[in-house]
């Protein structure tokens, strides 16, 4: 029988406001095994912890139940407290009477009753707890950054700067991401390329950084400090180490009608291509969907003109296996598809474009060499309508758009409007908005300049419909402040499309067993206090994969993620989690059910000889768990038909005891 001490925390009024903590302490006194039960204002404070230590010494306690906040907050605190008083840290159980009780109830009697039940469950569990000792595992001192946009670039540079090797995996042929496609950046209006490309060069020149471009992560095994990652390097049909990036192949390639994704399909590229001048690595890539040689074996011009002999039509996808200690997700964002927003006539008129397309239209390296011309007829537009929040903040139409605010659109629209007026003073620029949101250093000043200095017409209200008529776009909108309908004959309509996480994020999250929210943004371990860590140990978040972000925010978060990675890689050994699965070989059927449900590949089988009661021997196939790989998810314990598989610290008997205590 355990000797259990129960400690009920008030958490100021956080708990004591809706839970009668004295009644909880009193009620738990009578539970089996409980020797002492008491309450205190702040159990996590120095004096609160001292109270626990004193009680352990005075009452020779063997188990502790703390009724307090979520174990995610202070479980470690109390485990350390217990350990310093000489009892095994895994003899501590937390009854979460704050997040799961006091915060969700308003009624004191109900809250108190529930807190007592939760406390009883924890006591029932501690009665079956056993001391556990964690193992240690080494740390592979190399980091993986998935995504080569500004987030991934900055993270990689910072990690490399601390002396650790980093690999960047980028699915496009070049790093640079969305920022490489932008023209100017708010609020200072530096040219995006001018500030991004030096960083790309830094990455390329850094001998600690390897770039796997045109590559994807296909498999992740292992755990914090010891990830085994498989990277699929797509065949680019050009030898990366031989190609000089001279571009002779591109000039000769006869297949010149391939939509150029870097310019969002607004012009064409060749089948063999380098996305843009500063691409890193500056290596050509053959698009197998368009290359005649790859499709039907007829052509081969690029191989003939390549002086370096870099073309290799027989190249195959390559699989690289590498070990990493930490993984940073920096998969970024994309504008949402405008398909469902037909009221803006995006699919009907070439002159209805998204803001990212507008960036390319104003970029010197874009399809119009930086001249703002209408995509339909190449004429200079005189009336331009910007529509904000297209697909953002869609409460009523969550099916169609996103419920969240995409955050960056207000600022870039102000930038677009301002730059247009600056360069082409003969244009009329209208911006339709729901609200203008400009928190951020120098952001509001920037927006006000657009309105006050540059005379952009900001109109509160939404555009209802855009109808192409002749060479005009009839924009029908409402002005909510004047309460009247507006009709504008526009030459160009620019939609500030909501942004969403890249489509590759969801399968990647599954590979990493990292959690996501309903919008497919990666969830952080704590929204305020651990914003760059995912709840999965060893997986960190950088940039817009975690939520909409502008460049300054992305860069600071990228640096923060890097510092967390450096903190991890600087360690030589990590203490493991002893709450892992283990199999009772006498009961194991060898059926493989556990192996099949294990997301971590922690279970293997071997044939083992058993002495039978009649002195014969029997060789049976039995499961064994690698405790270093097991994450303690418990999937195997549920799948095991005979109950041979169980979890340390969360044994089926412990969970049943908790259920019994709750249902009693």
């Amino acid at each position: 029988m355990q000797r259990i001490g129960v400690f009920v925390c008030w958490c100021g009024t956080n708990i004591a406001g809706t839970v009668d903590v004295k009644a909880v302490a009193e009620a738990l006194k009578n539970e089996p095994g409980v020797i002492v039960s008491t309450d205190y204002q702040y159990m996590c404070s120095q004096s609160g912890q001292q109270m626990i230590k004193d009680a352990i010494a005075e009452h020779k306690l063997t188990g502790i139940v703390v009724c307090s906040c979520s174990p995610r907050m202070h479980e470690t605190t109390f485990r350390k407290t217990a350990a310093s008083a000489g009892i095994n840290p895994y003899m501590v159980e937390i009854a979460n009477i704050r997040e799961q009780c006091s915060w969700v109830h308003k009624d004191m009697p109900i809250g108190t009753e529930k807190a007592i039940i939760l406390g009883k469950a924890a006591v029932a569990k501690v009665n079956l707890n056993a001391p556990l000792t964690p193992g240690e595992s080494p740390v592979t001192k190399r980091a993986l950054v998935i995504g080569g946009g500004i987030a991934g670039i900055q993270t990689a540079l910072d990690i490399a700067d601390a002396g650790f090797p980093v690999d960047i995996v980028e699915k496009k042929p070049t790093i640079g991401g969305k920022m490489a496609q932008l023209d100017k950046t708010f609020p200072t209006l530096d040219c995006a390329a001018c500030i991004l490309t030096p960083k790309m060069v830094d990455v390329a020149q850094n001998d600690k950084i390897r770039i796997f471009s045109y590559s994807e992560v296909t498999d992740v095994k292992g755990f914090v400090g010891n990830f085994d990652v498989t990277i699929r390097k797509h065949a680019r049909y050009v030898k990366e180490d031989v190609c000089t990036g001279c571009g002779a192949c591109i000039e000769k390639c006869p297949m010149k009608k391939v939509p150029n994704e870097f310019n969002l399909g607004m012009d064409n590229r060749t089948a063999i291509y380098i996305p843009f001048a500063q691409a890193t690595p500056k290596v050509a890539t053959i698009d197998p969907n368009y290359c005649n040689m790859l499709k039907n074996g007829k052509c081969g011009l690029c191989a003939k003109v390549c002086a370096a002999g870099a073309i290799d039509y027989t190249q195959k996808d390559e699989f690289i296996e590498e070990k990493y200690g930490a993984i940073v997700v920096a998969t970024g964002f994309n504008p949402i598809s405008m398909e469902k927003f037909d009221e803006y006539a995006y699919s009907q008129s070439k002159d209805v474009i998204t803001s990212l397309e507008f960036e390319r239209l104003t970029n010197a390296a874009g399809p119009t060499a930086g001249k703002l011309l209408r995509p339909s007829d190449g004429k200079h537009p005189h009336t331009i309508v910007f529509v904000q929040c297209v697909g953002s903040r869609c409460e009523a139409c969550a099916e169609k758009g996103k419920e969240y605010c995409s955050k960056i659109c207000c600022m870039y629209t102000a930038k677009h409007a301002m730059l247009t007026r600056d360069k082409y003073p003969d244009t009329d620029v209208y911006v339709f908005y729901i609200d203008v949101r400009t928190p951020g250093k120098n952001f509001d000043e920037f927006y006000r300049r657009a309105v006050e200095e540059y005379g952009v017409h900001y109109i509160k209200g939404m555009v209802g419909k855009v109808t192409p008529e002749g060479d005009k776009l009839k924009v029908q909108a409402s002005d909510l402040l004047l309460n009247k309908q507006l009709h504008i004959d526009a030459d160009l309509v620019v939609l500030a499309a909501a942004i969403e996480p890249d489509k590759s994020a969801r399968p990647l999250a599954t590979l990493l067993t990292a959690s996501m929210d309903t919008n497919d943004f990666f969830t952080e371990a704590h929204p305020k206090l651990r914003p760059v860590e995912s709840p999965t140990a060893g997986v960190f978040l950088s940039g817009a994969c975690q939520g909409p972000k502008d460049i300054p925010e992305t860069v600071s978060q990228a640096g923060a993620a890097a510092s967390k990675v450096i903190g991890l890689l600087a360690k030589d050994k990590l203490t493991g989690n002893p709450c892992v699965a283990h199999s009772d070989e006498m009961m194991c059927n060898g059926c493989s059910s556990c192996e099949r449900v294990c997301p971590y590949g922690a279970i293997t089988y071997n044939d083992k000889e058993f002495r039978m009661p009649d002195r014969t021997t029997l060789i049976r196939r039995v499961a064994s768990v690698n405790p270093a790989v097991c994450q303690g998810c418990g999937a195997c314990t549920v799948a095991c038909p005979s109950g041979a598989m169980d979890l340390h610290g969360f044994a089926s008997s412990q969970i049943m005891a908790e259920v019994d205590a709750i249902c009693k």
Partner: protein
Amino acid sequence: MQKITREQLIEKASALLADGTVKQVLGWAKGEFDYDITPAVFESAEELNANFVWSDFCGANFSKYLVSKTRKCDGKILVFLKPCDTYSFNQLLTEHRFDREKVYAVGIPCEGMADIAKIKEICADGIASIDCEGDALKVHTLYDDEPVCVPAADVLAERCVNCKSKKHVAYDELLGEEGEVLDSARFDEVAKLEAMTPDERFAFWQGELSRCIRCNACRNVCPACTCEKCVFDNPNSGVENKSPANSFEEKMFHIIRAFHVAGRCTDCGECSRVCPQHIPLHLLNRKFIKDIDNFYGEYQAGAEEGSRAPLVDYTTEDIEPGEVFDRRDTDA
């Protein structure tokens, strides 16, 4: 009547015993009565000729016996498998429950097995013997001079009326003709239960399961129940045997068992066949099979050796549990 004859089976088994391919034969032997056929191990042609039986009462599925028999026999074992038995055979192989190398599987066609309970409903009690020849069963009773002729089709076991497959999914050798996977109406009864109100359904199962005498026959015959240590025999499991406090308490045994075999049950119907209380236990399992089909896509346990059942499979494409929950309303 079965198309394949007893003599053909004995001939095949004797030949394989004689040439040393197999050391033992798993077959059927007569029990107390003609309809009371029991599994038996034969080691010689003489034994086969004396005791081997093949009739409309050879329902027993031998797959499960391979788990224990292959461990004890130092040679190969010949096993006769009806089409439905082959699914259990595959399922056990998938779960690595016996060594395939130690088995010689002979697939035999099956025209459906008779249900003695149905015969007893037609004939008076006191059945002395039953001839299984032709399309009718000739039932000799103590009270009639002339045998009662019962059309075999009228007394087919439930699982044979709703036969899911005449195709063998595993064998080393096939006797007779291969059949097809059938379009059975086996889920109709489940659909009826689903259409009931919760109260009606509860009353139905209360009526059925209260008859349980907890003889464990269903578990002992079930080819999915081959655990080294069954949870019901394990004092540490928390669900070990205890005498019931009321007549309906054994429902927990059946519910737990249904969960344990969910996704692994091939719907062989042995549980209902052996139940002395005639509880339609297969309906519990079929409900699971139907739900798994609905929620995760069609899956037949045992149809393919090594197949990964939806409930015990992890893939990166796994859908969120919430999505499965939503399908409940649309498809179930």
